[in-house]
C-alpha cells in the first residue's frame, strides 16, 4: 500500500545544517558589519609589513630587474630557441588570463544566475581579475624581442602612415585584453562605490580623503541606487560574452596556426573552460588566505562558500576532462603523423612526467575528493585542492605552449625547451600579483557589505510543517 518506509535515520536529523550557520541567515546589525570590515582593512600586524617588504623586493629584483636585463641583453637569456619560439612567458600569459576569468565568473555569471552564495566574495574575486589581467598583460610585452617599439601594435595615426595588422591574433589579444581590463575595473568599481562611501563615513585622516575621492559623492538616494543597479545589471550581462571572447581570442593565438597540435577547432571553448576551472580554484585559495590572515573574515567567508565553490570546481573538472580527452582521442585515433609526433612527445616522450602529473592534479585528485562534503567544507583542504588544480592547469598550459611546438613536421628541427630567466621573471610576476592584492586589502573593503546586507534582507526562515525552511525573496 504505502511505500516501504525506512526508519528515521539516526543522527541524520541532527546533522542537518543549522540554517543559522549560513551567512545570509545570520544577520548582524549593519553597524557591526561595517565595523568588522573597517577593522579588517585597518589593522596591520608586524608580519604584514615583512610580507610586503619581501614581495616588493621580489618584484623589484625578479620582475623589474630581470626584465630590464633581458631587454638590454636580448631574448637569448631566456630559454626559447628554434623551434620553440614561445615558451614559459606565453604559458604564464595564458595562465594569468585564466586566473582572471575567476572574478568575472563569480561576480557576473553567478549574479546573473542569482546564486546568492557569491555575495561575500565577489569583490575578492574581481580584484583577482583586475590584478591577474595586469600581470597577464605584461607578458606579451615581456616576451617581445624589441619591447621598446611595442607601441607599434597600437593603431594610432602616425607620420609614416602605418597601421598594424588587425588580422593578427596578437592585435586581437591586445584589444581584447584592454577591453576586458577596463571593463573589469569598471565592474569592480561600480559596486565598490557604496562601500567606499561607508568607509568614508567611518574614517578620518588620509583614509577619509581617499575614500571621499573614490566615493564621488555617493549618498544612496533612490535615483543613485536605481542607476547603479541598472548599470551593474548591464555590466553583468555584457561582461560575460567579453570574458568568453577574451580567452577564446587568446586560444586563437594558437589555434589559427598551422602547427600540429595547436591547430584545433576546440581550443576556444577548451581554454575558456580551463580558465574558469583554474580561476575558481584560485578564488578558493585566495578566500582561504583572506580568512586566515584578515580579521573578522570568518564571519563573512564560511564553510558553505567553500562547499559551493568545491562543487563548481568538480563540475568544471568534468568539463575540462571532456574537452581534453576529445583532443587526445582525436589525435590518437585520427593518426595524422604530425599530430602523433606531438602527442607522443607529451605522453611518452620527454614531457611524459609532466603529463601524468597534470592528469593526477586535474582529474584524479578533484574527482576523488570533491564529492565528499566534509572535504569541501574544510577551507584548508580546499586550499590544498585549489593549489593542486592550479598546478595541474599550469602544467597543461606549459605542455601546450612550449611542449607541443617542440615537435613539428620536420624532425630535423625538433628541440626541447628549458626555461632560464623565465623562472625568475615568473616568480617576480607572481609576487607582483600578491603585492597588489595585499596592498588592495588595506585600501578597499574586501567584502561588499551592502550586497551581503541586501542578501540578508532577502533571506528569511519560514516554517513549513514541522521544519524551518530557508526562503529567499526576489527583492531585486
Amino acid at each position, binding site marked *: 500500500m504505502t511505500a516501504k518506509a525506512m526508519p528515521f535515520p539516526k543522527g541524520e536529523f541532527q546533522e542537518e545544517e543549522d540554517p543559522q550557520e549560513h551567512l545570509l541567515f545570520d544577520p548582524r546589525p549593519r553597524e557591526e558589519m561595517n565595523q568588522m570590515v573597517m577593522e579588517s582593512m585597518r589593522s596591520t600586524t608586524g608580519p604584514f609589513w615583512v610580507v610586503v617588504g619581501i614581495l616588493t623586493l621580489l618584484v623589484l629584483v625578479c620582475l623589474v630587474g630581470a626584465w630590464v636585463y633581458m631587454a638590454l641583453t636580448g631574448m637569448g637569456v631566456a630559454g626559447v630557441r628554434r623551434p620553440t619560439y614561445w615558451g614559459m612567458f606565453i604559458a604564464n600569459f595564458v595562465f594569468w588570463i585564466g586566473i582572471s576569468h575567476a572574478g568575472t565568473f563569480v561576480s557576473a555569471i553567478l549574479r546573473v544566475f542569482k546564486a546568492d552564495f557569491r555575495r561575500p566574495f565577489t569583490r575578492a574575486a574581481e580584484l583577482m581579475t583586475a590584478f591577474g589581467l595586469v600581470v597577464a598583460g605584461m607578458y606579451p610585452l615581456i616576451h617581445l624581442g624589441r619591447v621598446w617599439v611595442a607601441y607599434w601594435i597600437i593603431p594610432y595615426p602616425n607620420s609614416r602612415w602605418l597601421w598594424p*595588422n588587425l588580422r593578427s591574433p596578437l592585435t586581437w589579444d591586445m584589444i581584447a585584453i584592454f577591453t576586458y581590463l577596463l571593463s573589469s575595473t569598471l565592474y569592480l568599481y561600480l559596486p565598490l562605490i557604496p562601500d567606499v562611501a561607508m568607509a568614508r563615513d567611518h574614517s578620518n585622516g588620509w583614509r577619509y580623503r581617499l575614500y571621499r575621492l573614490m566615493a564621488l559623492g555617493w549618498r544612496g538616494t533612490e535615483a543613485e541606487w536605481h542607476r547603479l543597479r541598472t548599470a551593474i545589471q*548591464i555590466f553583468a550581462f555584457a561582461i560575460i560574452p567579453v570574458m568568453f571572447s577574451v580567452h577564446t581570442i587568446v586560444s586563437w593565438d594558437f589555434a589559427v596556426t598551422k602547427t600540429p597540435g595547436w591547430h584545433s577547432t576546440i581550443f576556444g571553448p577548451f581554454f575558456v573552460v580551463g580558465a574558469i576551472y583554474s580561476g575558481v580554484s584560485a578564488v578558493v585559495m585566495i578566500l582561504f588566505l583572506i580568512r586566515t590572515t584578515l580579521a573578522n573574515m570568518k564571519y563573512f567567508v564560511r564553510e558553505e562558500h567553500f562547499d559551493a565553490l568545491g562543487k563548481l570546481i568538480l563540475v568544471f573538472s568534468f568539463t575540462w576532462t571532456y574537452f581534453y580527452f576529445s583532443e587526445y582521442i582525436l589525435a590518437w585515433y585520427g593518426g595524422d603523423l604530425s599530430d602523433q609526433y606531438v602527442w607522443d612527445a607529451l605522453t611518452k616522450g620527454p614531457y611524459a612526467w609532466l603529463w601524468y602529473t597534470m592528469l593526477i592534479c586535474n582529474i584524479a585528485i578533484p574527482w576523488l575528493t570533491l564529492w565528499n562534503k566534509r572535504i569541501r567544507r574544510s577551507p584548508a583542504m580546499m586550499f590544498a585542492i585549489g593549489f593542486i588544480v592550479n598546478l595541474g592547469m599550469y602544467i597543461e598550459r606549459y605542455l601546450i605552449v612550449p611542449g607541443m611546438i617542440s615537435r613539428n613536421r620536420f624532425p630535423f628541427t625538433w628541440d626541447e625547451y628549458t626555461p632560464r630567466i623565465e623562472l625568475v621573471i615568473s616568480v617576480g610576476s607572481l609576487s607582483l600579483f600578491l603585492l597588489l592584492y595585499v596592498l588592495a586589502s588595506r585600501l578597499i573593503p574586501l567584502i561588499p557589505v551592502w550586497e551581503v546586507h541586501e542578501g540578508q534582507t532577502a533571506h528569511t526562515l519560514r516554517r513549513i510543517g514541522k521544519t524551518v525552511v530557508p526562503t529567499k525573496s526576489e527583492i531585486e
Partner: protein
Amino acid sequence: MSEGTIHLALFNAIDPAAEAIGKLRELGIQDKDMSIISSVPYSDRMLGRPMSWTFVPKIAIGGFIVGLVISLLLNFGTPLLYPIRVGGMPYLPIPPTLVLTFEISMLGLMFATFLGVIWESAFPSFGPKEYHSEISNGRIAVVFSCPAEIHNQVHDLLVAMGAEWVHRTEATEL
C-alpha cells in the same frame, strides 16, 4: 526640494520609513519633495514611490554604436589606407574583422554605461549635500522639504513613528 526648509528623518527599519512616506503624502508633501537615502537599495515598490527614471540603458546602446563605428573604421578603414597583402588573404576579409568589431563594441557599451552613471548622478560632486553618516550604518533617511506651517505636525508624526529626528539639516560636507 522646492520650498520650505529641508528636513531629514532617520528610521531604523524599512517598514516605518515606508509608512512615514505615506503619512507625509497625506499631509500634502509631494513625491518630488521627498527622497529616501539608504545603505542598501530598496525598490520603488517597497517604498511606495513612483518609479525613478534613468537613461543609462540608452547611453549604453549609444556607446555600443560608437564602438561599432570605431571598429568599422579600424577594420575597414586602415587596410584601405595601408593596403598590405598578407597570406594570400583579400584586403578586406570579413571573418577576422568580426572579432574586433565585437570587442570594441562591447568596450563602447560598458564604458558608456559607466560614464552614463557618472554623468547622470553628476558625479563627482563633493559639495555639501543632505546626508547623515548614520545612513551607511543601516539607517534609512527620509529627506523632505515642507512649508513652515506644518513643521510641528510633521515632527510629531514622524517621532511617533520612531524616527530619530534631525531637522533643518544643513547640508553636510560628505
